[in-house]
């Protein structure tokens, strides 16, 4: 079985985000970028499937500008066998991303498509669902556990009510939640080996995909600053203060 994994270049989770003065977006100048942490979890799962002998090949795909190749190199260091770089310099909406990923899926014909449940930059949580819908294949989102058995996958999903176990036919789109696994540390020999693994570059035109219209970001603003708190001495005081604010 082939496993396809999509990874996204995002601002590193350690970086304190700064919104540009004119509200046109987030400041990315000189900011440390990394692979989306949920995509790392998806990558780790794919590599484990390969190590367990369930998958024969792991292919990483990303959509982004020249520098997104860095994240593909990370994916290759994780253990992907090869990578596909869909070069797009503009912002990509979830629907456009889903169209691109659909085209890549159709070209590669993997048995499983893994990705993070969402990217930590926009937190849209849409690309996985849209990709499966466009492809007309099953989806299993928020995976906390994944088992492959022949042509079926059993996925334990982390939902609001608790854990939900579903079985889907393969191929399917599975999106990784936080507890699916703990990604490994990349070993130095693997980091250096990744340099020599193949990366194929394609454009949206090569894939016959057009950007989806309809989504424009009008303004970006930072969340309101947290107001100063107060200190209370006893639990009674705390309860009274909460009641006073109408919170309990």
């Amino acid at each position, binding site marked *: 079985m082939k496993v396809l994994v999509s990874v996204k270049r995002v601002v590193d989770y350690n970086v304190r985000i700064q919104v540009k003065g004119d509200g046109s977006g987030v400041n990315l100048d000189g900011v440390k970028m*990394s692979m989306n942490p949920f995509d790392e979890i998806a990558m780790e799962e794919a590599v484990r499937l390969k190590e367990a002998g369930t998958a024969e090949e792991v292919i990483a795909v990303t959509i982004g500008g020249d520098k997104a*190749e*860095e994240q593909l*190199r*990370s994916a290759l*260091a994780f253990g992907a066998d090869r990578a596909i770089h869909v070069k797009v310099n503009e912002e990509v909406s979830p629907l456009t991303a889903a169209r691109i990923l659909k085209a890549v899926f159709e070209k590669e014909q993997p048995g499983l498509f893994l990705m993070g449940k969402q990217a930590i930059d926009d937190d849209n949580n849409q690309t996985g669902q849209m990709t499966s819908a466009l492809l007309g294949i099953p989806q299993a989102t928020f995976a906390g556990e994944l088992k492959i058995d022949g042509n079926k996958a059993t996925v334990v999903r982390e939902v609001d009510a608790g854990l939900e176990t579903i079985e889907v036919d393969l191929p399917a789109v599975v999106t990784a939640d936080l507890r699916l696994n703990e990604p490994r*540390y*990349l*070993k*130095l*020999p693997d*980091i*250096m080996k*990744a*340099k020599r693994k193949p990366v194929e570059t394609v454009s949206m035109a090569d894939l016959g995909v057009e950007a989806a219209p309809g989504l424009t970001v009008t303004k970006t603003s930072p969340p309101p600053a947290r107001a100063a708190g107060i200190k209370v001495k006893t639990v009674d005081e705390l309860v009274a203060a909460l009641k006073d604010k109408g919170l309990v």
Partner: protein
Amino acid sequence: MEFTTEHEEIRRTTRRFIENEINPFVDEWEEAQIFPAHELFKKMGDLGLLGIHKPEAYGGMGLDYSYEMAFAEELGHITCGGVGMAIGVQTEMASSALARYGSDELREEFLTPAVAGEKVLSIGVSEPGAGSDVAGLKTTAVKDGDDYIINGSKMWITNGMQSDAICLLANTSDGKPHQNKSLIMVPMDAPGVERAKKIHKIGMWSSDTAQIFFDNVRVPQRNRIGMEGMGFMMQMQQFQEERMFAGASTLKGLEHVIQATIEYTQQRKTFDQPLIDNQVIHFRMGELQTEVEALRALVYRTCDLYVKDQNSMEVVKLASMAKLKAGRLAREVTDSCLQYWGGMGYTWENPVSRAFRDTRLLSIGGGADEIMLGIIAKLMGTLPGKKKSADADNKAA
């Protein structure tokens, strides 16, 4: 200095490792005044972190020193000085001469397990009567058949309570002090090696520091690194990597101190305004950050030259400058920042007070500031020659 994707990945792996495998345990190790070197080094060895600049034939990555420097810089994220120092002893101070000049057999025996994190190393240069004055050391290694018999003692030995082997600098003849020394790999379980009590220091508590006695310790002569009498020269060369490492591993720790102080002074209010709104403080933070960036530029430049030419005298000068500046700047940054924490800064648990204690060593260990200044002056051509005393002159006359 240009960093590649691979440099960034090494940084990332190092940082994640520190966040998960080191920092959560630092308080415990500080308290115990020792860290579990074997356990930690094995984990690092498995990831390839202990042999970045070491030959591939001995399990290393065979990469140039810029990768090692990226690693050293990330070690600054460790929330104490002792663990990074212990790692530096393993990867630079105790193993760079071995890697460069050791016989294949000796490297197989000591370098391969050091890179794998299976053996912990110490470097034995300083003695109770000789530290920065390396030429004045007294430990002897006298030939007896195919062996050396070692007698003497070594002081301030990092990893000394738990190392498996020590790279020992000893006098192997009576000749001139710069030509009579050799570096010898001595297993710490050899009969006659005694680890005296752990030394109680003002900082670097996670790192165990020992005095070690050698009483008729017998080791085969094949444990000598390179040619006899070349020990002083090799040690001087070994110091260059140590000094670059010291400079690089200081940077991020100082930035953490500055950042923590900024955050604290933003929250802390006096006279109805955040402390940091006082110009003396926010200007000072700007000044200190500028100094750290200047040190970084010097470290990168030194490393860049070293990658191009390992034997350049310019590197000796720049590495000494980087080491000097790192020590002095660490004192300036931690002292200035501690001041703005007020009473909180004077408490034991405070991160800035720990950095203040830990980094104080930088100006002393690995060649004191004054030794660095001597080297720099010598290379600038301004060091006066040693004059005979008037008394000696009179006697000669």
